[in-house]
């Protein structure tokens, strides 16, 4: 009888220990997974915003040739090239805040830097990253003033 009770106590102790260890591991993983999921969703959202922000250089917007008063959807290209006039309007009339509202990139700020083939800046617009928590960027290639240009789009918060 004595031997039997000892055996039972030992088994119970071991099983409990394993159970709690497993519980701790599962909980840790669960917490990690939730965080990662949130982070992933946030990054996916950010990437989608980033793509949307970069696409403005390749679409015409609405109306096709908008100005400060008529613009409904922002788009900086016409006939497959970046329209320099639209860049002027963007800088002089639209302004960053209105641009952000038209762009609809959630909580993020956006910054564009357009450089030529020699990486010399030919145009920039937006808010430069400052004490940024997260920064996302994509580099696209377009045609401005009959020259190929590199367009860096930076999204940050």
């Amino acid at each position, binding site marked *: 009888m004595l031997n039997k009770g000892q*055996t039972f106590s*030992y*088994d119970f102790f*071991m*099983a409990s220990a*394993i159970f709690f*260890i*497993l519980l701790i*591991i*599962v909980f840790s*993983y669960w917490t*990690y*997974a939730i965080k*990662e*999921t949130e*982070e*992933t969703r946030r*990054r*996916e959202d950010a*990437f989608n915003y980033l*793509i949307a922000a*970069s696409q403005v250089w*390749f679409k015409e917007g609405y109306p096709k040739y908008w100005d400060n008063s008529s613009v409904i959807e922002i788009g900086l290209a016409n006939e*497959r*090239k970046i329209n320099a006039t639209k860049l002027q309007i963007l800088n002089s009339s639209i302004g960053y805040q209105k641009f952000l509202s038209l762009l609809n990139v959630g909580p993020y700020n956006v910054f564009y830097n357009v450089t030529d*083939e*020699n990486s010399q800046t030919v145009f920039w617009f937006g808010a430069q990253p400052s004490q940024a928590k997260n920064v996302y960027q*994509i*580099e*696209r*290639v*377009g*045609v401005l003033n*009959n*020259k*190929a240009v*590199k367009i860096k789009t930076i999204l940050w918060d």
Partner: protein
Amino acid sequence: MKGIVFSTDAIIAVTLGLLLLSLIPLTFESGHEEASFQALSYQANDLLSVLETLTVSDISQKPTVSSLIAQGIIKDKDLNKTVLDLIGTFWYSGNESIARNITKEVLENLTNKCFKLEVGNETVYSSNCPESNTVAVAFRTASGYEIGKPVAGYIARAWATKVVKNITQTIPFYPEGAGWTANQVEITKKFSLPTNITIYDAILYVSVHFGTSQSQAEFQQLVVNGVQKKNDVVWLYLQEEKSGSEVTTAAYGYVNVKNELVAGNNSIYLKFGTPNYNAHVHPGMRLVVTYSLTQDVFTANTTFRKRYYFDDVIGRTGAWSMISFYIPENAKNVSARLKVNAKRVDDTQVYIGGEWRNSTDVKVYVNSNTTFYADGDNEYCYSYTDKGYYCVRDIAGVMNPRLDFDITSKLVNGTNVVSVYLNSYGDIHWGYQDSEIYSDPINDPENSSYIEVYYELPEPPFYYGEIDITKDKLFGYLDCWKPLWNASNPKNCSFNISENEKRITESFVHIAQGFSSMIKTYAWFDNLPQNLVFVSPAIRAVPESVYIKPSIWNVGENNIALVDFQPGGSISDTNYILPWSSFEYTYLAKSMVGYGSVFNSSDAAVNDAIERLKQQIGAEGINATNIQVDSKSVYGIEWLWGPSLFKLYVW
């Protein structure tokens, strides 16, 4: 022992749990890779768009392009080409290094990624980078310039407005005759050939049933435009039929009448008889003339009004003729009139039942073995004499009936046969006059006997730029089952229609026979089911030609079968189809050529177009006497070497 087992279970459970948990981070990684791939994909598309958007002038400062401009290889007119076109131009003209350098110079400073441009399955340019598992690719299809072809210059097309072509025209003699007990039948055919022709060949095939008795009238005259040709006939086939002392012959032969025929109006006169039977023309008598004709190129009509004139037939006694004509398979609004001008017809009567009754002396059949028209109300005979061939009646007088019928309701699309009998039917004759089916289409067309057919086609048989060519092939030259040049029944022949001849607009089989009864004609392509295109509606209704609808024919092996059969349906034992039967068909050839290669001068382009036209129509025996050309300068012709698929890889 129990404790150990329990611990092992727990360890396995823990291990599985940990493995499961370890999978969780992997899902996060895959999301990141997808984003990277999307970014690469945008880059690939952007770079290809740049090549599509930038023009040569936009990259004129690039070393390679600048050098090519300086050398004059790239000219001003090339400056508006896109860079993608330029790369394709050099790549497909064998200048791969130039294409490679342009690609490199344009793209290498626009991305810090590795990239590769392919066209087709060949690499134009590739960065010197290691391979990667994540590669994005963008596609564009584009057309470029053919190797060695100039992209600007002159092109020309040409078409003939007037041509000289060789034509084979068949002028039929319809089965017709009469001529009783050695009295002759006289047949006169008057016809016109075009006036602006040169006759190369003219063969008159003679197919008659005449007597061979020493004491009786036989083949007496064959006069072509006043020249006696009866002794020039080469008899190819003679089939005798004896009945006691009566000997008659179905004879088939030919005579060359090229020297006698003239452009314009012609006349052929035929006179022959039999000892104790009726002399007549058998199927297959026809004149085949080959001549060259100068004609303007035009679009054919869609409405047709054609007259088929009877031959003038004078029979002693009785006269008959069986004329045939055709209506195309797709003809609409078809109508036809029959006019018969008969002369010296004995008006017979019989006294039966205590009264005089008007007997039939004129009979007309239209596609049927029952009469379309009969002038009397009976066909009684008091008795028969002369071996049963002569019907004894009373003769009331002589008449000259002129008949005018609308036969539209009896027409069929295809071959139509109309038979006119004066004082006769089959082998039975009555009356004593030299009755005549009058016809003189040259001098007296309105008083002649004829059938006038009207029909409409949904579209012209040929359009401007198309020339109709007619050929006639004797069965003896075709692939027939029986040995060549043999008479046989049935006769099955095969022949090929070439690619050049595939647009057939009309086709006929001209049936040549000695003795004949009724005929069935089949036509079919390859191994497809046979089409019964004609069957005689009555005995002796074997037409001179049978129309075969062109839709039956196709490029390759085609077949015709002719069967002579008895009214009961059995195949005739002694009625043969002769190898001088023929297949006549008309097909269309193009008399225009489109724009061709690009030349540096208008003259060179025009000369090329004319030469192409001459070669094309020359193959069909056509010469162009008037040619019009249209030359124009062109620029930026995309001589398709593709379209080719451009692929830009980025990794």
